[in-house]
């Protein structure tokens, strides 16, 4: 335990965190109702939220489990299409709030099932092999979405013609709530015996197995949870764009998410959040140079890998309450020091 840190007890920590999250939300919504944040900026904020969910969920497999899958966009696509088709089917016949809620759940479940189906064979492999096979599965999902209609004989995903007229239900509030829920769930999972089992697999699979941890089970579990959250992001994406095209979920999208995770620091949730926010805002800021985005990406990655190979945050996980504890500790420490010197 570090000196000068006041340990804040548990229920109060939750209250502080909840208050901080509510404050962020209130500030942003106040700014947007005051007109400081225009509609255009709100769109970017929603995109940032979606990318944060994608990065944080990929971080579960890349950072915590220590595997390298390259098919995250595939799971996002599955979630997006599941939710898009569902929303089109029920629009008008169901209250929007309920429909949106159900579409998010449905997207998570369908993407989770795909994660399970793909995870079982893929997770038998490691490292580059896993990367290649998940890359392959991701492409299979995209190509199937593109061509499934001509196999089925009726319009289901509308292939290259795009799935249009999805109700645009994704608001900033919804996206923000999803980010908070996903981050909370991943955080609490990682701080339990399940999370420790996942971390132990990253650290040393043989030792973890000899500690009685069923590594295959936990690998698959992490993979499924990660895929399900990617599905949630996909669902938000469907409601954000209102139109889905398989080309949006190509290999480059997977790489983009991976870049966010690696740049932020594998195994650091705050790192994923920050780098997802920066990397989604950057192309908008550099609108004029949008074509050079990938060049900027690679340059940024090379620079980070040279100067900070473990990513911006390393494996450091930020704790707001610990920070406050340290601040209080420092202030009260100074006070006692002053008192002592006065005496």
């Amino acid at each position, binding site marked *: *335990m570090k000196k000068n840190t006041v340990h804040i007890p*548990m229920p109060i920590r939750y209250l502080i965190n909840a208050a901080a999250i509510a404050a962020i939300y209130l500030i942003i919504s106040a700014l947007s109702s005051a007109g400081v944040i225009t509609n255009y900026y709100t769109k970017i904020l929603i995109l940032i939220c979606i990318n944060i969910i994608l990065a944080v969920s990929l971080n579960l497999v890349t950072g915590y489990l220590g595997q390298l899958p390259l098919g995250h966009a595939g799971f996002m696509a599955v979630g997006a299409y599941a939710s898009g088709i569902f929303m089109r089917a029920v629009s008008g016949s169901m209250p929007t709030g309920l429909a949106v809620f159900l579409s998010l759940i449905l997207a998570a479940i369908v993407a989770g099932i795909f994660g399970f189906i793909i995870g079982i064979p893929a997770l038998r492999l490691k490292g580059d092999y896993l990367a290649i096979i998940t890359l392959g599965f991701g492409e299979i999902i995209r190509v199937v979405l593109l061509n499934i209609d001509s196999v089925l004989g009726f319009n289901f995903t509308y292939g290259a013609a795009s799935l249009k007229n999805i109700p645009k239900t994704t608001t900033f509030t919804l996206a923000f709530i999803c980010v908070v829920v996903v981050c909370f*769930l991943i955080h*609490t*999972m990682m701080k*339990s*015996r*399940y999370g*420790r*089992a996942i*971390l*132990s697999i990253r*650290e*040393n699979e*043989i*030792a*973890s*197995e*000899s*500690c*009685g*941890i*069923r*590594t295959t089970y936990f690998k698959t579990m992490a993979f499924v949870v990660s895929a399900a959250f990617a599905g949630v992001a996909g669902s938000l994406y469907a409601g954000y764009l209102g139109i889905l095209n398989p080309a949006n979920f190509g290999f480059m999208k997977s790489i983009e998410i991976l870049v966010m995770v690696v740049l932020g620091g594998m195994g650091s949730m705050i790192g994923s959040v920050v780098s997802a926010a920066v990397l989604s805002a950057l192309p908008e800021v550099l609108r004029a140079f949008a074509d050079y985005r990938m060049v900027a990406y690679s340059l940024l990655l090379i620079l980070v890998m040279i100067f900070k190979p473990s990513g911006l945050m390393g*494996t450091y996980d930020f704790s707001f309450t610990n920070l406050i504890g340290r601040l209080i500790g420092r202030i009260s420490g100074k006070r006692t020091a002053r008192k002592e010197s006065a005496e």
Partner: protein
Amino acid sequence: MAKRDVREPFIPERDKGLTPTIECIGLGIDFGGLTAVDDFNFTLGRTEIAGLIGPNGAGKTTVFNLLTKVYQPSRGRMLLLGKDTKGMTTAEANCAGIARTFQNIRLFKDLTVLENVLIGLHNEIRYTMFEAVFRLPRYWRAEKAARERALELLSIFNMQDMADDIAGSLPYGAQRRLEIVRALATNPTLLLLDEPAAGMNPAETAELMETIRRIRDMFKISILLIEHDMNLVMGICEGIAVLNYGRLIAKGTPEEIKSDPNVIEAYLGKKGC
């Protein structure tokens, strides 16, 4: 002295009558055309401390890997507390009561000492994913109990003050001790120690000997260790098995082993020539 048949079981007097912890009957494994271990017959008493020795490459660690189900044997059977272990995975073998340490330390290096022990306690902690994710009361109770248990286990080796240190930053001896604590956390009936004294100085080795005995007395478990430090082996083992080229060449008490001509030949070569 009458030579003991290596095929006969050998366990200390006090453990006779109890089901042996481990009973290997004709255990063998081939890697392709190479027979690494063959006809391995071994019985371990319930509270016995036994040693497995032999020259380099004799197959000692392979035996450990067979016992912990990292490898499935090509021949023979292995009974754990009288139950056949055929088809078990490493994790299942651990749940059934076999814990081990590794020759080249395999700690969870980037995690804290406490987390390492908590991972060992994984199967002792009982709450569901739902209870964990939504932080229900059972989660808090189980985590608190696990933490206390982990600190208690660490205190056996006087390591409770290091609980928040990163495991990889510990000195070598402490890492070896932490590995033993982590293995103990899985609540084993058999503890396998692969060269526990490697890299330790004589004082540390003496202390380790004491601790191994204390662990046996505290937890009432059997301990099988591979070790090259003969002081340690002869000092604490009640039974010793000697492997050479994958076969048992001798079995018996330390005194019997010391004077066994086969063992002397395996270690030092034949007289004369």
